[in-house]
């Protein structure tokens, strides 16, 4: 009896071990997912970046091609200026914090987009103005959890599911992100609050650009219009180019 009494605390501990193990494993998986997500977040950005991107938009009503130059600094500042077509040359979108400004060379004016405009299309593409603001903060707004790890179609992949943090002001109900084992993004599925698939983003043609391996083609396809897409092709990108904050000011927007 005495032996049993002495062994009791150890027995309890042993019984609890699998539970704790599960919790620790879960925590570890979440942390790892968070690390990968931050890595993915930083892939396009670095501390700062400068890129030349061409964009092709295909919808039921039009197909258009654009070339643009973009700069970014950290998570909150980015600037995109249209190079072609001529009609829109010089049109610029500046993201500063949570605001988006448009510089319109035709009228030589800068306009701050209102909350109501955030869900409308950016430059006629399948991206919304809101994407410009929110996309760069996946790791800020979502909890990441690894939901699959292994081989899929002969490739080692990690799939993680992003769910919005309780107080995050985001439009997506869930994002399922698929990356290669070397953390190179392959695909992202965006679901609304009712868990209905809304759009698919695919990442392809990885190439070494500047200092990193990088998917140079990004294509977004809306689920309800499978024949439509917007494709971004990174023609040039340089990272960590040392931009100052004033570069992303409204005053500079006009002078560019």
């Amino acid at each position, binding site marked *: 009896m005495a032996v049993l009494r002495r062994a009791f605390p150890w027995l309890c501990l042993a019984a609890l071990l699998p539970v704790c193990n599960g919790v620790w494993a879960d925590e570890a998986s979440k942390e790892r997912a968070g690390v990968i997500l931050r890595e993915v977040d930083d892939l396009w950005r670095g501390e700062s970046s400068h890129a030349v991107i061409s964009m092709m*938009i295909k*919808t*039921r*009503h*039009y197909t*258009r091609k654009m070339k643009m130059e973009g700069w970014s600094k950290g998570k909150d500042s980015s600037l995109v200026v249209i190079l072609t*077509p001529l*009609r*829109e040359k010089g*049109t610029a979108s500046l993201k500063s914090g949570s605001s988006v400004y*448009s510089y*319109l060379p*035709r*009228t030589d*004016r800068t*306009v*701050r*987009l*209102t909350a*109501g*405009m955030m869900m*409308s*299309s950016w*430059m*006629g*593409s399948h991206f919304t103005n809101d994407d410009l603001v929110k996309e760069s903060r996946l790791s800020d707004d979502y909890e990441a959890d690894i939901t699959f790890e292994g081989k899929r179609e002969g490739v080692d992949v990690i799939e993680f599911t992003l769910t919005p943090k309780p107080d995050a002001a985001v439009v997506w109900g869930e994002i399922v992100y698929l990356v290669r084992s070397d953390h190179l993004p392959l695909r992202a599925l965006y679901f609304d609050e009712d868990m209905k698939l809304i759009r698919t983003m695919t990442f392809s043609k990885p190439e070494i650009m500047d200092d990193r391996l990088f998917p140079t083609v990004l294509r977004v396809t809306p689920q309800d219009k499978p024949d439509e897409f917007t494709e971004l092709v990174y023609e040039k990108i340089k990272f960590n180019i040392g931009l100052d904050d004033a570069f992303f000011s409204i005053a500079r927007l006009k002078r560019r």
Partner: protein
Amino acid sequence: MKILPFALRGLSRNTTRSIVTTGAMAFAGTIMIFYLSLLEGFTETFERNTVGMNTGNIQIHAKGYRDDPDLYNRIQNAGQIIKKLEAMGFAASPRLYGYGLAASGKASSGINLRGMNLEKEPTVTQLYKHILKGAWLDKADKHGVVIGGKLARTLGVGVGDELIIISQAADGSMANDLYIARGILKSVGEIIDRAGFFMTDDAFREVMVMPQGAHEIAVSTRNMRIELKTAVKMVSQTAQGYETLSWRKLLPVVARLIDNAKAGTIITLLIIYSAIGMVVLNAMLMSVFERIREFGVMKAIGVSPLQIIAVVFAEALLQASIASVIAFTAGLALSLHFQTYGIDLSTWTGSAVESSIGGVALDPVWYTHVTFDTVTMPLEFLLLIVGIAVIYPGVKAAVIQPVKAIHHQ
């Protein structure tokens, strides 16, 4: 027996009571004529502001457009449809709609872009007359726009100020241009007041890169004396493959509001006249009881109960007739006066830019509208109620037994 002299003698027995009873009837009649004219004025203005200011009697849209106002979901052969409708006697105007953002200085607001056909629109709606400040659109001034009152306030713009718009053009490009506010509208309805941004159809097509089609055709039956249902049938046969709806279907809440106002009129008439009925009943009962011995004597010398009822009825109807003449004269004069000058309610309803019910703008000056019904209906009701109220005193006088009546104290 001559009924009329007896009735007149009955009335002159107590002139004060007869005058008060007749006066009460005349007062109620006058008030009701005025009230009905006022209500008619309200519903007429409401209907006119709904139909004549923006909606038109009938509208044509591409199927599904109303649920999802897509820039690309257009009536492609709008010109042909309008020509056919005009040949039938309708007036019709094509409209173009888009959504975007307008900015002035640091202020910006979501807008409802509207491209108007300046030749045809005035044949359908009176919007061009509804300007608070500045002027309506002009074909020669392609960059001149007219905006809603609340939008002007949100953006802090006045006539002559600059406005920039941003939208997505039909070719996917960013539609943007600089415009000058040429006019600010009076209150029309919530959507137009808050977001209405009117430009010429040419300017709209240019900025939105939309050379063809229209999003809406507004049709007016103003020049035709036909029922709305018949008109809808005719228009929908002409615009086959598209959705044709009357304003009553487009604005069911407003239609119901107007219908309810009409039903409410009859209820109000009944309530007011029940009170008058009580006054008449009371007065006639008093009159009958005062003369109960007289009726007894009349019956004793051979006057029939029907003749006695006729006397009581004649007394009541004489009073009602005199009251009707007074009510007709006073009510009509009062209503006609306010039909011309109106009642200014701006102290209660706020400024001309703000007052609206159910999204439909209301002029703060309330005008009566005199029709045949607004004058005759209260008088018909008056005679009917008096007729009902006098049944009991009449029967009471007619069935009285001469012996009991003669001994009545």
